[in-house]
């Protein structure tokens, strides 16, 4: 019967929904979308309302329950968080600028970093410089007992300062994680000949085990009587009475643990982007006289670059709002924004409205970053 139909008609039939009506299409999507509307969009709407609502309640009630009457809108809480000055510190120079200006500069740099490659000339330079400028203010280098900064952003507003600090910590551990994952992925992709995927699974498996316990185990390694300190004491490098205290309950600890926790996960996207490189291209380049380094730079690097940016973002995005790691191993020195946010709801501060402002600010930054870089995320994640 189908064979008797002219080909034209048949192809039109194919483009029509094969057997499914619009009703069943949207009927199947509806439950999921409803669940998301009720338990994802609605809660976000509530934190938005809490962040801008002017409420009337007596002070005692306010602590017990935030069920105040909505009596208007206010931007007061937002200006409490955002209406602060920012000091840009580079060695030998301090410059004061409003937060808004800093935000605009960052958005412009982000846009340049993402779209720069479309420029005809100097495209890769624009991208490189924009990425470098985005990273530099937030990178930290360990030097002895201290962490050294090339450029620092600080603020007179305590929450903004804390936010910059969290971004710094997240950025540092993301860069470290990528730098460790690249050689691991390179090794797996090019040097392992047999059962490549089994090795990959061995690398990734720890990511799927209890996060809390891996954090806890680091306490055992880095603690005052931990593996490193007792090892150093045993060989006499460290005095029994003076263990290396910066190892635990500090920014350093949080950065180490975050890096450790995420490296296995990002080995996957980097490995996959190495896998897409055709080895014959490299062979051709070397036959034509290129060195290995030149071949890597001219052929491999452009291919893996999106995967590397994606890997960086896979660590960075969840790390900015990190809450568990700093609570367990950060101590006072390693406090992060997410903890301060949580304190507004369940800890001592108990200020749901200001907590909502903090939550929305964090969400805004993360979403902006995600949408700006969605091209990379898709390339690395193989998403929809």
């Amino acid at each position, binding site marked *: 019967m189908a064979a008797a139909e002219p080909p034209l008609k048949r192809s039109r039939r194919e483009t029509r929904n094969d057997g499914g009506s619009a009703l069943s299409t949207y009927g*199947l999507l509806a439950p999921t979308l409803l669940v998301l509307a009720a338990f*994802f969009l609605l809660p976000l709407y509530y934190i938005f309302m809490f962040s801008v609502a002017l409420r009337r309640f007596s002070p005692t009630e306010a602590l017990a329950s935030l069920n105040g009457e909505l009596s208007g809108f206010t931007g007061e809480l937002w200006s409490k968080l955002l209406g602060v000055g920012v000091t840009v510190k580079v060695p030998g120079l301090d410059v004061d600028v409003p937060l808004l200006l800093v935000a605009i500069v960052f958005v412009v740099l982000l846009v340049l970093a993402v779209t720069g490659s479309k420029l005809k000339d100097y495209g890769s330079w624009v991208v490189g410089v924009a990425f470098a400028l985005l990273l530099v203010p937030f990178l930290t280098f360990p030097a002895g007992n201290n962490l050294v900064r090339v450029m620092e952003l600080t603020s007179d507003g305590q929450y903004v300062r804390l936010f910059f600090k969290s971004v710094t910590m997240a950025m540092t551990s993301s860069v470290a994680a990528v730098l460790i994952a690249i050689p691991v992925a390179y*090794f797996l992709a090019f040097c392992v000949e047999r059962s490549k995927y089994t090795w990959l699974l061995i690398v*990734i498996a720890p990511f799927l085990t209890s996060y809390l316990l891996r954090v806890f185990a680091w306490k055992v390694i880095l603690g005052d009587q931990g593996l490193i300190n007792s090892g150093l004491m045993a060989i006499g490098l460290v005095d029994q009475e003076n263990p290396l205290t910066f190892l635990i309950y500090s920014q350093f600890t949080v950065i180490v643990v975050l890096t450790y926790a995420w490296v296995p996960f990002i080995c996957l996207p980097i490995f996959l982007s190495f896998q897409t490189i055709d080895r014959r291209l490299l062979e051709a380049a070397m036959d034509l006289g290129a060195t290995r380094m030149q071949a890597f730079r001219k052929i491999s690097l452009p291919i893996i670059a999106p995967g590397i940016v994606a890997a960086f973002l896979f660590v960075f995005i969840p790390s900015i709002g990190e*809450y*568990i790691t700093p609570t367990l191993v950060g101590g006072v020195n390693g406090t992060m924004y997410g903890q301060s946010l949580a304190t507004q709801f369940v800890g001592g501060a108990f200020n749901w409205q200001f907590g909502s402002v903090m939550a929305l600010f964090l969400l805004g930054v993360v979403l902006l970053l995600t949408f700006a870089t969605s091209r990379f995320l898709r390339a690395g994640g193989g998403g929809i």
Partner: protein
Amino acid sequence: MARDSTFVVISPNGKRLLTLFFAIFLIILYLPTVLLILFSFNDSTVATFPLVGFTTKWYGLAIHSEEIRLSLLASLRVGLISAFIATLLALMAAYPLARRNVRGRPLISAMLLVPLVVPTVVLGVALLILFQKGAIPIGLGLESVMIGHVIIALPFALLILLPRIASIDKRLEEAAYDLGATGLQTFRIILLPLITPSIISAFLISFVFSIDEVVIASFLAGDQATYPVYLYSGLKFPEKTQTLIPVATVMIVLSFLFAIGAEMIRRYGDRRLQGR
């Protein structure tokens, strides 16, 4: 001259160096897990060096602890139910997204995937407001945790199911329609057997995520602690920690097995599809 196949990508010395790097990486990667297993048999109340002596008493204590048993049961329940719901919802959404012309697809995809990047602490507090003061005042408890976990697990499940459904030859289903099968019959007879491995793998990923999730759970569990919440509160107090390590060790080994199981099922599915 026979060249080593890795010659073009790395020099022989570089390869040695990289192998060494990889070996050190693997040791550090597994060091924390090994330490936990060691300390679960250590005869001391604090997890510090040097090791004191071999004992299995912590396992004994853990088995008889009512708190641990209840929290494990709570986690199991939350994990199984939320993984089931997340997988089902993801499957229902993935089918039309992979097969039909959906209007507003970019918007719908974005909405389905955005929970991936929303910081869990933000989702946790937002749901806290919804359940305590909002339009859905079900309060705090395991049901609330389940809902939170469904939202986060949904995109993971979708990312596993959607590409798989999209990769299956559409003509198989068209043939079934042409032979008179209904939509549901086609799904059950043609599609379901082909995507079963992916469904299982989506379920396992959602489950593994849920039984390890602590942020949302600690905001929404109220006084019914799930295992990670119990563990988290215990880890903050060193004197309580030692009794937690044995269960932790068992959990780590189990989740390793789970992860490997999920991966093997996924690969089995891949092979079967390629074999067609």
